[in-house]
């Protein structure tokens, strides 16, 4: 085990996988000499050189599109888009090509690639450095979507994503990049399964469901609840597509009360889907309405960088409503 920050874990996992499999290439803006604007690719250029660590022009369509063509030709590209807010110039490549290639070619071709993107707010970056775009990907058949919240999960899931056979959108909560250090498994085969959530805490009073950057506030809220004697079950979804319906339904059915947390805008959020599924599948087990605590349906503001987020206060307020119901 080695004590690492989230962003260090990304860089090291890339290094290990590039050593193991020479088909792995990394491409993106500033991923070379600069080591990435967050240093998530630090050291790779010096180790593997410009054929395997490719600084691209300033075009997300070029990055994502080239990754597709590389994957088709047998490489295992890991593409970086500098901020997930900048995926949109490459959105056509992602949704019209990467997501559909296997399907539309009847399995003749596929695009096993990973698209890494720092996501989420709370870094005083203003609208275009703060968004959470996961709904767009989750709603696009053919993409797997993962949003790990801890260094260890990031390691296990990045490896799973890189060794998989499908395009994976890999979102990284940038405000947690350096927020914590933890012991990260150094077993070179440490991987976490596709589509499986994890229980971060267990309790019988209410289920909290979240993922990615909002796990921090969700765990804070759970700790505050514990002090008040309320025991929360906390599910970290990790995978947003496929998401772990079995675990969610089991835990929510057991407790009957659930609060879902996501910092993306509220309407048609990923947690809307989970709430709708809960209502559809286990309506009779519910003691209270499934409540969502989310980002607002506004663009992400700069001046109210923190107020926009579903912070612990907002989560606790919703839990109280669910408990009082």
């Amino acid at each position, binding site marked *: 085990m080695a004590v690492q920050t989230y962003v260090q874990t990304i860089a090291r996992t890339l290094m290990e996988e590039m050593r193991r499999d020479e088909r792995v290439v990394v491409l993106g803006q500033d991923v070379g000499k600069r080591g990435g604007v967050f240093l998530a690719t630090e050291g790779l250029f010096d180790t593997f050189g410009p054929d395997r660590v490719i600084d691209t*022009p300033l*075009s997300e369509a*070029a990055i994502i*599109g*080239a990754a597709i063509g590389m994957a088709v030709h047998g490489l295992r590209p890991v593409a970086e888009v500098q901020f997930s807010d900048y995926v949109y110039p490459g959105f*056509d490549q992602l949704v019209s*090509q990467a997501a559909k290639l*296997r*399907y539309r070619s009847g399995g003749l071709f596929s695009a096993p690639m990973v698209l890494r993107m720092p996501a989420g707010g709370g870094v005083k970056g203003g609208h275009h450095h703060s968004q959470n775009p996961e709904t767009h990907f989750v709603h696009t058949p053919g993409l797997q979507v993962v949003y790990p919240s801890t260094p260890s999960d990031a390691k296990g899931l990045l490896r799973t994503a890189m060794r998989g056979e499908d395009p994976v959108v890999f979102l990284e909560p940038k405000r947690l990049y350096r927020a914590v250090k933890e012991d990260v498994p150094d077993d070179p085969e440490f991987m976490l399964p596709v589509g499986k959530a994890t229980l971060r805490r267990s309790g019988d009073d209410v289920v909290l469901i979240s993922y990615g950057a909002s796990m921090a506030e969700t765990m804070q809220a759970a700790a505050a609840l514990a002090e008040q004697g309320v025991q929360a079950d906390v599910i970290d979804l990790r995978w947003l597509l496929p998401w772990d319906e079995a675990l969610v339904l089991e835990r929510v059915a057991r407790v009957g009360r659930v609060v879902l947390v996501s910092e993306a805008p509220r309407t048609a959020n990923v947690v809307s889907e989970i709430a709708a599924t809960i209502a559809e599948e286990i309506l009779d087990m519910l003691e209270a309405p499934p409540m969502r605590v989310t980002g607002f349906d506004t663009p992400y503001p700069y001046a109210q960088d923190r107020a926009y987020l579903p912070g612990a206060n907002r989560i606790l307020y919703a839990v109280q409503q669910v408990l009082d119901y």
Partner: protein
Amino acid sequence: MIADFERFEPFTADPVAVLDEAGAWVAPFECDLSDATLRTMYRHLVLGRLIDERLTRLQRLGKTSFVAPSAGHEGAQVGIAHAVEVGRDWLFPYYRDTTLVAAIGWPLEKLFGQMLASKADPARGRQMPAHPGSRALNVFTVASPIASHVPPAVGTAISQKIAGRGDVTVCTFGDGATSEGDWHAGVNFAGAQGAPIVFVCENNRYAISVDLNHQTGSGGIATKARAYGMPGYLVDGMDVLACYYVMRDVIANAREGLGPALVEMAVYRYGPHSSADDDSRYRPAAEVAAWRARDPLARFRRYLEGSGLWDDDSEEALREAIKGELDEASAAAEAAGPQDVETMFDDVFAEMPPHLEQQRERFRQVRRAAGEEA
């Protein structure tokens, strides 16, 4: 390093031609193709034209829903087909490249299977007609969004550069495609990387109804190569040999590591944009007629006749033979029968995730309940 056989200048004002309109050889070098190859080229030109006719007939009979005729583009497409090493190089074609995929030897039964979305379609009927693709021949399955195949083509070419085996990629598209951001993104990346790729614009001067002057201020396409630091060649696309020779040279250059090129082939589409279009709304009849007089089949036939390689009898025999092949292939494609309905749930991912299993299961239940077979 400059390839030995480099014969053509980039950025010429007039299109490169090898044959004149009468079919006489006008190039400053000699023909080095065998008689057999020349005859095969002609066979491919006619094949393309006849596939077109057949597809249009099938469409009128309601057997296929859509046709994007390639008539008028055959010279360009056959020229490309003969310049690539099939199965070694990669092709990223677009929907109008029916003649191209037929000429590189994609089996006609598959071609018709794709058009009919029958079980003979290797892509399982997933896409509309005119979207061919072949793993064996390295043909990236055509996608509808214009120019969206360009960045992937560049990715494949960068892989080829990394692999260093001298393989190349050829990526084709229409004049309209050059306006898309994805096109620019891809071509620019190829230029920056010196990737072994040849971009080919089949410039028929229209994107559906939008003419070239509404498409771009540049007047032509080859000149756009300057924006990316690569040579741009303007070629007479009604001259199959000009297309072939220019492609052969730029492909050879790319193979040797000299980087990408852009080739503009001046063509014209003889039919409407597609079976859903009415081109009389926007194209003057006289313009169509003028280009029909420059038919790539006729010009090349005149050359062959002049060389003593072709006559009316060979023509008749060829057309009969091809029609026979088309009858057979289209019948076989049709006989394969339609796709099974449940296959629509396959191939979203390498493995089917639980939610798709659930959706398929529910679909089955509904069909059973409604008395449709599941």
